[in-house]
């Protein structure tokens, strides 16, 4: 159909299929600020545009329905004021506010939020916070918890009313407990280096780079949980006009691999194929199709004939190792890692004994035992997995992909594609959220195989349903806790026995579950003589089932550990009549002590004992307790009761947690830095900013060393052809590992600049040794006060005398993994009759070392708490008796909306971690750990319901209450 649409004040001629969505047409026309969340059903709101001034989902309208209406996209709002010689009106107040207050994390939903806010402010210039939250309620954000976006809208409204140009940044509270050296750029809420681009909806994400003529890939997925493919007929599909390729297992080289994006050698079994003759879960791959359009590709999928021999599935992990259980991996190519044994459906096994656990139990006055259960949950990043592949003119395969691990992806793809690493280039543009799910190589091989088959560019983007049924998730576990305690609260022994369900494939099976014990059980070592020699046991079996594979998810096994550990601590404290905070602190790890697991386990490698130097836990408890009003509320019945509402009761709870910072002796990051003619620098890093702000933080660290502003550092990440190696974004490592690499490179460059400046001073008659020269304010200054700008030094080095490119490359691997610590607090309101829980407040006090960028770091904490809140109260993935998923969309899988968030507060307790040049540790994963147990403890405080299985649903609370009554 041919018709005209009115877009951003202009009439645009459109040729569209009758059933083509407005979203797809707008993107095809180049309005790339309109994003797809893969649902095409109005679930996520990333595709928001304004239609006649109202915020609507462009995926819910056919393009023809927009005929006669005024469409506004983010592209119409504003651009930076200085476009070379051309001055513009600049960015809109909303864009400015979103940029300046740190609202933009991954940025995938930012355009949508800005437009929804624009619609609100045009009809209501002075909205309340509730009205702002209501206006944003249709746009799901997995990064921000909506805290800063809501503030930004209120700030923009104020700016527009008062005609101001700048939004105030609300900084988190920072409480230094160590002496922190003075810095110029570190510790400042520098605007994110990519925020301006994202606030304009510019080309940034993988799908934005698809060119006209790119083939669209789709994957045929298994309807059965366990079956052999006995016959495939693709003739009809191949004959369909517009189909370029149909691939099945018969077409591809049979190469066994693991999808887990980890360092070589992969610490887990190799048990996957790009396509196989067996399917192992509902949603497993059966065939790939590339076609001229998505519609044709989907029609082709329907034409593929598949005969299955259905096999009995294993759906409950408790059945996986029973004698006679169906064997999920019977392929001859399976490669074991450590104790994996496919003959008994065992993907990995962990046995760790620290000290003398049985002696510790024998010495206890009381031994507490209980089983806990944690669910399978989804990362639910708003940008789906997406990869675009094409041959470049030099016959090298280019893969543009939304990945956390570009270098691992390149290494892992090479054997699958029968290409040497040197003929593969992986480009990582902006990532629209990943949370660990993009630490998997899940889509790149699909696009690449189809490009090899067709010779043409291919894009493969998962649908929202595929994200739920066929990507990765948090490992669900059943965990038995046994803890020996003396009556004074001294812990004598602690034991965790976990049964972890890795699903159909063993990606991250060993390392995720290892973390479950390593990071949670290590927090409590006991007191007095037990503190010197803790008694800790952690055993785990990680088993295969015919359910979608689990994998990496922010927190990487640790949230699974803290639900049982902290709920258990609460139960023990209450049983013994101890103060719950004092009991935890009495037994918690302290500075100067060994991380107990470091003496016994190292993910299948040789253990390397590590002493923990910075522990801000007591300060975290003190600050968090004060912020939430713990001492006024805990044990105060007047606070717990709601006057006039006897069916409601308040409760308060806490949980203490620790995470890790990178993987010692393994994680390596590299950086290269070069000086430009004007005194600016190009910083090239392999690290991948998936919305965390790591590019900005890396720029700040380089700027601090070089004495320039952060915006003088032009960051590029990442491209396997140009940027140095980096293991990727995982394990809370970028600030600590990649950051130190950046600092090392910057230090080398600084040294070269000083040497050059020294020569320039000498030529001008002033003697100044390089080490006497300081770099600040974009200048090199000698002790007498004379100085050269970095631009002058750059011109000298590049053009005038003894020409050289001042640049450096550095890398870093750490012998330590200094854990961040935190105290998480929650207050809840429980309906005693129905069991419904409403979380009212979340307060987190975090020791993440020195905070490099408070706005970015607090954004991490807020977003993490919101994700963890879902883990606590509503998120879970449930399967029926045939392995079919209950949750296939963002309606049934509920993630928190802007209009239902609890109040949130973040406090940073700053310790100075000497193993990092600026004292930093990490903040990215730790907010995932404490919310669920803190809420569980608060529910118990409110009504006595002692929940052992999260999420804490109304029925569980009601049943627990029924037992009490």
């Amino acid at each position, binding site marked *: *159909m*041919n*018709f*005209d649409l009115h877009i951003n004040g202009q009439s645009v*001629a459109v040729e569209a299929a*009758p*059933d083509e969505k407005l979203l797809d047409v707008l993107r095809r026309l180049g309005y790339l600020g309109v994003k797809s969340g893969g649902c*095409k*059903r*109005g*679930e996520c*709101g990333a595709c*928001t545009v304004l239609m006649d001034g*109202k*915020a*609507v*989902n462009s995926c*819910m*309208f*056919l393009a*023809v*329905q927009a*005929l*006669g209406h005024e469409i506004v996209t983010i592209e119409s709002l504003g651009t930076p004021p200085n476009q070379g010689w051309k001055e513009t009106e600049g960015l809109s107040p909303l864009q400015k506010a979103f940029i300046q207050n740190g609202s933009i994390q991954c940025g995938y939903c930012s355009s*949508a939020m800005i437009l*929804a806010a624009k619609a609100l402010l045009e009809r209501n210039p002075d909205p309340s916070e509730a009205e702002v939250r*209501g*206006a*944003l*309620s*249709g*746009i*799901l954000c997995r990064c921000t918890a909506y805290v800063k976006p809501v503030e930004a809208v209120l700030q923009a409204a104020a700016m527009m009313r008062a005609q101001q140009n700048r939004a105030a940044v609300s900084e988190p509270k920072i409480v230094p407990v160590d002496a922190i050296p003075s810095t110029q750029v570190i510790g400042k809420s520098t605007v994110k280096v990519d925020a301006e681009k994202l606030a304009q909806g510019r080309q940034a994400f993988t799908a934005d780079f698809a060119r006209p003529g790119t083939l669209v890939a789709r994957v045929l997925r298994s309807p059965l949980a366990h079956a052999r493919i006995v016959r495939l007929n693709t003739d009809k599909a191949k004959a369909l006009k517009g189909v370029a390729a149909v691939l099945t297992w018969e077409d591809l080289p049979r190469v066994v691999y693991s999808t887990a994006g980890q360092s070589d050698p992969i610490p887990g079994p190799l048990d996957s194929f790009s396509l196989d003759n067996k399917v192992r879960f509902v949603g497993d791959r059966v065939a790939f199709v590339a076609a001229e359009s998505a519609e044709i590709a989907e029609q082709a999928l329907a034409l593929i004939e598949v005969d299955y021999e259905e096999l009995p599935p294993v759906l409950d992990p408790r059945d996986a190792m029973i004698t006679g259980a169906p064997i999920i991996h019977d392929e001859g190519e399976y490669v074991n890692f450590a104790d994996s044994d496919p003959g008994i459906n065992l993907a990995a096994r962990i046995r760790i004994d620290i000290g003398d656990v049985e002696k510790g139990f024998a010495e206890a006055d009381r031994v507490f035992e209980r089983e806990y259960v944690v669910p399978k949950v989804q990362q639910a990043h708003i940008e789906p997995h997406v990869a675009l592949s094409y041959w470049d003119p030099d016959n090298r395969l280019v893969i543009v992909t939304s990945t956390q691990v570009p270098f691992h992806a390149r290494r892992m793809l090479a054997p699958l594609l029968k290409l040497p690493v040197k003929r593969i280039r992986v480009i990582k543009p902006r990532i629209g959220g990943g949370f660990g799910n993009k630490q998997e190589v899940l889509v790149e091989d699909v696009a690449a195989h189809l490009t090899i088959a067709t010779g043409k560019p291919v894009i493969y983007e998962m649908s929202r349903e595929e994200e739920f049924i066929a990507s990765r998730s948090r490992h669900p576990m059943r965990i038995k806790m046994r803890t020996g305690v003396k009556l004074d609260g001294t812990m004598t022994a602690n034991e965790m026995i976990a049964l972890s369900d890795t699903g159909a494939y063993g990606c991250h099976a060993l390392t995720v579950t290892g973390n479950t014990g390593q990071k949670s059980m290590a927090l409590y070592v006991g007191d007095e003589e037990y503190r010197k020699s803790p008694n800790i046991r952690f055993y785990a079996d990680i088993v295969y089932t015919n359910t979608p594979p689990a994998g990496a998810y922010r927190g990487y096994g640790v949230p699974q550990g803290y639900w049982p550990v902290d709920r258990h601590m609460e139960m023990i404290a209450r049983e013994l009549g101890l103060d719950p905070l004092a009991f935890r602190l009495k037994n918690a790890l302290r500075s100067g002590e060994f991380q107990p697991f470091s003496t016994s386990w190292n993910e299948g490698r040789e253990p390397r004992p590590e002493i923990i130097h910075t522990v801000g836990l007591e300060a975290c408890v003190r600050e968090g307790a004060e912020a939430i009003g713990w001492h006024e509320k805990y044990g105060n019945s007047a606070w717990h009761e709601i006057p006039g509402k006897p069916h409601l009761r308040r409760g308060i709870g806490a949980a203490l947690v620790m995470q890790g910072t990178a993987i010692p002796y393994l994680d390596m990051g590299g950086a290269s830095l070069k000086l430009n003619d004007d005194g600016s620098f190009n910083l090239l890093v392999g690290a991948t900013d998936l919305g965390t702000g790591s590019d900005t933080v890396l720029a700040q660290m380089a700027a601090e060393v070089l004495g320039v502003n952060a915006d003088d550092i032009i960051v590029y990440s990442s491209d396997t052809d140009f940027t140095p190696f980096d293991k990727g974004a995982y394990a809370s490592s970028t600030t600590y590992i990649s950051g130190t690499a950046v600092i090392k490179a910057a230090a080398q460059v600084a040294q070269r600049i000083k040497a050059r400046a020294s020569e320039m001073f000498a030529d001008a008659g002033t003697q100044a040794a390089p080490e006497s020269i300081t770099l600040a304010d974009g200048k090199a200054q000698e002790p007498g006060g004379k100085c050269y700008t970095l631009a002058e030094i750059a011109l000298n080095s590049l053009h005038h005398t003894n020409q050289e490119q001042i640049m450096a490359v550095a890398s870093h691997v750490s012998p330590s993994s200094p854990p961040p610590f935190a105290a998480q607090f929650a207050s809840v309101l429980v*309906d005693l*009759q*129905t*069991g*419904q829980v*409403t979380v009212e407040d979340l307060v987190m006090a975090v020791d993440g070392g020195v905070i490099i960028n408070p706005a970015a770091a607090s954004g991490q904490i807020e977003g993490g708490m919101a994700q963890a809140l879902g883990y606590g*109260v*509503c998120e879970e993935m*449930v399967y*029926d008796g045939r392995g079919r998923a*209950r949750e296939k969309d963002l*309606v*049934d899988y*509920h993630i*928190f*909306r802007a*209009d*239902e968030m609890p109040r949130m507060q973040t406090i940073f307790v700053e310790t100075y971690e000497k193993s990092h040049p600026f004292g930093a540790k990490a903040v990215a994963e730790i907010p995932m750990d404490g919310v669920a147990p803190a809420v569980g403890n608060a529910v118990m405080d409110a009504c006595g319901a002692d929940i052992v299985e999260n*999420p804490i*649903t*109304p*029925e569980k609370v*009601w*049943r627990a209450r029924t037992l009490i009554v």
Partner: protein
Amino acid sequence: MRNDENRLKRPKNLEELAVLFRETHGCLRILAGGAYVPSRLGSSDLFVDIQDLGADRVEKSGDILRIGAAASLQQILEADTGLKELRTPLELEAGANARSSLSLLNFLRSADQRSPFLTALLALAPELELAPSGRFVSLERFPRSQPENEREFPLWMSFRIPDDFAWEFIARTPKDRPIISLAAARKKDSALRIACGGDEHPPRVISQSAKAEALFALVRHAYEASGDAWASAEYRQEMSQVLLSRCLQRLESNALKKEEL
């Protein structure tokens, strides 16, 4: 403005609409603003966009509320319906964008069994005025799926605004889909009407002027086989009693307030 006259029509009145139905023998698709996954189209299907028919309004006339098929859920939420408690099920149904995108017609076709707004509507006993026939059908009898061929579609929905209306629900979070929801509407001259929803069965309606005890038993009975992956039947049955009690208290309280006024 250019458009493909062969595929897209925007009738200006019901007569033009009727002609299109006659000429195409129902091989057409009604577009009403907002579409949840339109079914695949035939190559010759005609698009009939009803946005010029004037059915994009929410009208209140006396105690009758009339909502056009092209009115969005957000329009309903913002309209002065006299039913403040209708806001919550609308807010639970979808976020603001989706509410602005979704027309009543497409909501009626796409609402699933657990839909909170559908449960609320059913308590209000709406009638649907079908076009082009002009036939009336109750919402309870309206099939909620996209038909293969359009023979007729609801152009208007109307109901008498009850004297009292109450809505109660239980969900995992404040804006999650309810696990159980109950809506109760009472009109002076007719029975209390209760809709029971939130499970994987279509919402059930109980119209009863019997005493409260019988009402509680009927509501409990409505959830007898309601166990699903979201909640057990036992829980829902117990909660139905709590929610019904709250609804009745709300109705009583509202009635008292009105008397005081």
